[in-house]
Each structure stands twice: as C-alpha cells, then as structure tokens.
C-alpha cells in the first residue's frame, strides 16, 4: 500500500472520530441526569492514551491528535457537568425519579 493511501484512510478515521466529541458536545445541551459517568471516564482515558499513540505510529497522524485533544476537552466538560449536578441535587429527588421509571415499566 502506498503511503498516500494510508494517510488518506488515517484522515478518514480521524474525521469519523470527530463525531465522538461532536456527539458529546451536542449532549451538553441535554439534562445532566442523562450523562453516563462510566462511559464518559472510559472515553476520557482512551483519548489520553490515543493522543500519544497517534504520533507514535508511522506515518504520524496529526489529524487524529487534534481530534483526541478535542475529545478529551469534551469528555472532561461532560464529567464536570455531571459532578456539578450530583453535588447540587439532593438524593430525595433522585429516588422519586427512579420510582416513576419503575411505574412506567410496569404499565
């Protein structure tokens, strides 16, 4: 395979990866209770490692580096939003929400 083709596919991969930070930035508008903290932390740690990985390979993929930097920012902002929501809301309201979802499932 020629290097040009590899670089093109790398660019395509980075472009597809850009949909992850965009999707999470769109989710910033939604209610904080919809955020899944486990998935967000895994995405953030995955971005950290892949920032390093993207330039360790040959040919180096600088598009991917930028994409993962953006993803890191997006995930951290989501996480901080979730943390702020957890700190400011009391647990009584959460219990009410859980009960209402259980009732919906029964119907």
């Amino acid at each position, binding site marked *: *395979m020629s290097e040009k*083709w*590899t670089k093109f*596919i*790398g660019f*395509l*991969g980075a472009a*597809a*990866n850009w*949909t*992850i930070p*965009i*999707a*999470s930035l*769109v*989710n910033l508008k939604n209610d904080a209770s*919809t955020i*899944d903290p*486990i*998935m967000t932390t*895994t*995405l953030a*740690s*995955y971005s950290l*490692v*892949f920032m*390093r*990985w993207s*330039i*360790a*390979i*040959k*040919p*180096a993929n*600088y598009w991917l*580096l930028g994409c993962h930097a953006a993803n890191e920012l997006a995930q951290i902002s989501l996480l901080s939003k979730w943390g702020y929501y957890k700190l400011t809301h009391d647990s009584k309201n959460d219990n009410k929400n859980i009960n209402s979802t259980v009732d919906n499932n029964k119907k």
Partner: protein
Amino acid sequence: MLKALLNKYTGNQIICSSPLVLRFFERNPKLAFLNNVTNLAPLMKWSLSIVPLSQMITGSKPPQNIDINQSYSLCATGSIWTYYSTLIQPQNTGTKMLAACNGAMALCHGSNIYRRMKYDKDQEALKTQAQK
C-alpha cells in the same frame, strides 16, 4: 512549529523512558509490553466495548437511556479503524489486537443502536394502540 514541538514523540513508542521505570521493566520482562504505547492503546480501547457489553448484560442501562449519537459515532469509527489498523506501521501484536477490538466495538455499539431503535418503535406502536 507545532510539529517541531512534538518531534520528541513522533515514531517513539516508549511511553516512559525515565531510568527508574526502565529498570523496573528490565526486572519484570513479562510486563515490559505495557511500556509500549502500541500495545497499551488497544488494551485501553477494549474498555470501550466492555463497558456497553457489561451494561447490556447486567441491565444497568435500559434502552431508553442509550445515547444514540454516541453509539452511531463509535460504531462508525469502529468499522473504519478496523481497516486503518491493518495499514499502519509497525505491524505488531498490538496493532492486530487493535483491529480485533475495533471490530468488537462496532458490533457492540451497533447492537446498542438496534436496541434503542427497537425500543422507540415499540413505544410508537404502544401509543397508536392507546389512541385506538
């Protein structure tokens, strides 16, 4: 100029090259693969497919809570990256594992998309039944 700043890291697979860490990995040669970023990165990426799988099995994430935008994007990257990881240099065990784990990721999030779409369809059917 930005590229010049990153010259230290381009093509360099060793994560931490401080003498203390290197000595530790010399003593434990079975763990030495962890200091190579091409091996560590696929290992980290496995968590991206393990988390939704475990949530699917334990049922801690019902289909109405699935973030469909995220599932779409992760499914798309998974399928493109399976091909990309067969093109890059170096071709070692790590990159082959990356291809495998990207395939798994595409499948996991694909099934998540299917679950959410099926849930939405069922809800619509219930609504139309209620109206009748």
